[in-house]
């Protein structure tokens, strides 16, 4: 059983499991939307004293904190108990494209799991302009953008689309405009800095 779960999951299984997570949250009286946690964390941190947006009943989101803590624990279990035998197996075309940008894709577990690019995402690199942009500016865009759009991949792309919400479709189009712009225009520029 453990061996069965520990192999990399087929995308159809992963998709069904995400739908199951969404169903459980709805059945428990809540909804599936991870980026709401940013607002809740800021509100707990006292941002509501200065900014009205954070002056809301965050205690009604107490369940979201537990969900987020669970996601961290689940991440730990996902590699320690259910870890795949090999790093992420990417398409050859992606390995080649990233290689052209001097980003090595791990081929063995000793080189990495293939979850984060260790060459560019590390503490030393925070001091460089390219590292700062990719990690700090990139993170800033995630928080700013998801709160502006009112949702992220879970809230818009999965929950919103499956409830046939037009604003969610518009948001997902935005996700791709931004993602394609970074991938094909900004990333090569940033890495050349």
């Amino acid at each position, binding site marked *: 059983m453990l061996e069965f779960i520990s192999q990399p*999951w087929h995308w159809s299984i*992963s998709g069904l499991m995400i739908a199951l997570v*969404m169903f459980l949250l709805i059945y428990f009286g809540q909804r599936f939307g991870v980026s709401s946690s940013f607002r809740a964390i800021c509100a707990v941190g006292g941002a509501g004293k200065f900014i009205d947006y*954070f002056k809301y009943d965050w205690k009604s989101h107490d369940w979201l904190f537990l*969900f987020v803590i669970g996601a961290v624990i689940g991440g730990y279990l996902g590699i320690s108990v259910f870890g795949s035998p090999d790093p992420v197996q990417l398409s050859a075309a992606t390995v080649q494209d990233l290689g052209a940008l001097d980003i090595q894709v791990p081929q063995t577990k000793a080189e990495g799991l293939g979850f984060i690019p260790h060459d560019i995402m590390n503490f030393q690199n925070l001091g460089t302009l390219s590292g700062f942009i990719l990690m700090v500016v990139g993170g800033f*865009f995630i928080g*700013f953008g998801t709160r502006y759009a009112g949702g*992220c991949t879970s809230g*818009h792309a999965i929950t919103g689309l499956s409830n046939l919400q037009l604003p969610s479709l518009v948001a997902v189009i935005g996700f791709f405009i931004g993602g394609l712009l970074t991938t094909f225009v900004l990333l090569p520029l940033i890495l050349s800095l």
Partner: protein
Amino acid sequence: MRLLKFLIVGILFGIVMTKSEAVSWFRIQEMFRFQSFHMYGIIGVAVVAGVIMHYLIKSGQLKNLNGDVIQFADKPKTYTASIIGGTCFGLGWAMTGACPGPLYTLVGHGYWIILVVIASALLGAVVYGALRSKLPH
């Protein structure tokens, strides 16, 4: 007990994010380069299953665990916010290779550098909150 079930669903979510490889910066690059069906398959199956689920819940008047009939709130029709905010998120998604769920999951993998990305995301949320009344929605 009221909150414990959310911890358990969160653990399931973290395992799913890890095993699906949706946490992978490389998978996100592969997706935006249209070089694999993997991420599209995951999101596509989740959405199709979700459409069926929403239909069944609505047509069956299904009740939640608290005994209330499940109702779905429509997303606010703020299309300008959707497109501009969505584009900003997309820029960050492709830079960091992670959306909010995977960010938390990656911390569980022991990648402490991700805490810097999360702190930056919280700062972004604060700045949105501060500028909210001035931004077009």
